[in-house]
C-alpha cells in the first residue's frame, strides 16, 4: 500500500522533503513506519525522531489529522502521516 508522509518544522529540513509518497508492506503501524523511515534515512532525521532506536517521546505523529497515541495505529492505503516535532520558537 502507499501512504503520504508530511514533515513539519525541523523534520522537513532533516528529511530534505516536505511531502512524499511511500510504499509500505501491510500490516504496519504508524509508529513502526516512522521509526523505519528514520532508521533507513539516518543522519539528522534519525537524530530528531529517534531515541535509543525508538521513536522520541516528544514527537507528535498524526494519521489523517488525529494524534497517534501509545497504542499502535494500523496504516491503511492513502493515509496521511504527519511528523510534527515540537518547537519553541517565541520571542527571544
Amino acid at each position, binding site marked *: 500500500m502507499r501512504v503520504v508522509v508530511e514533515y513539519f518544522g525541523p523534520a522537513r529540513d532533516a528529511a530534505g522533503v516536505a511531502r512524499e509518497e511511500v510504499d509500505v508492506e501491510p500490516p504496519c503501524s504508524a509508529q513502526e513506519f516512522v521509526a523505519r523511515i528514520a532508521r533507513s534515512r539516518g543522519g539528522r532525521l534519525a537524530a530528531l525522531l529517534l531515541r535509543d532506536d525508538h521513536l522520541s517521546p*516528544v514527537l507528535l505523529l498524526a494519521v489523517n489529522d488525529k494524534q497517534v497515541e501509545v497504542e499502535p495505529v494500523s496504516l491503511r492505503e492513502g493515509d496521511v502521516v504527519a511528523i*510534527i516535532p*515540537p518547537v519553541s520558537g*517565541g*520571542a527571544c
Partner: protein
Amino acid sequence: MPARDEPLTPEERETYEWQMWVPGVGEEGQRKLKAASVLVTRVGGLGGLAAYELAAAGVGRIVLAHAGVIKRSDLNRQLLMTHTAIGTSRVECAARRLRELNPRIDLLAVPENVSPANADRLVDMADVVVCCAPLFEERFALNEQCFRQGKPMVDCAMYELTGQVTTILPGKTACLACRVPEAPDSWRRQFPVFGAVSGAVGCLGAMEAIKLITGMGEPLADRLLTFDLRDGRFRTVQISRRADCQICGSK
C-alpha cells in the same frame, strides 16, 4: 486584578466599532475585553505581535514579561522595538509602543522572563496567558502554573517558516506536558526566523485569547494548528490528554 466591568465610553465605542460588528462580539464582547487581563510572556517577534493585537482590540490590562535590552539583531522581527531604543529595556520599549497605539488600556511591564520561581506570581496577574517563550523550560513553568491556577493558556511556537498554535484549558484539554513531556534535546535558544512568520503565529495566538475572553468562536482546544509557510501547508491535528501526564494526568 482590576477587572473593569464598566460600560464603554462613546470614544471606546467609536474606536472598536469595526470589531464590534463581528458576529458574537458586539458591545457585550467588547466589555468583556475591557474587563479582561492577559499575560504575554516575552514580547519579541511572536509575543510582541500578540500583545500589539490584544492592545489594539482593547484588552483592558496586559501584563508584559520579558527581560533584557534591545539588540540590533532583534529588529528583523521584534516589531515593538525600535532602532533608537537599542540598548534599553525591551519590555519598557514594548509598553511605550503599546501605549502609543492604545492609551486607554493598563499595561504592566515586568522585566523578567518566566521561570519556576516567578511563574506563579505572573500567572496570578491575568485571566488568560499567551505563552510566547523561546525555551521549553519557560513553557513548562507556565503550563504547570496555568494548570494549578485554572487559567487558560494559548501556546504559540514557531521555527523557521513553520508555526504551531494550540489553546490549553486546564483540566479539560491536553496540556503542554501531555504532548511534550520533556524538553527536546535538539532545541536551541537561537533559531531561524522571519518576522512575518513569528508575527503570523502571534496574531493567531491573540485571536485565540480574544475568543476565550469574548466566548466567540471555537478555540483550538485539543487541536494543534501547524503550518509551513514555505509551501502553504496547514494542518489541524486532534490531540489528546494523557492519563499519565506528569502535570494534569489522573494516574
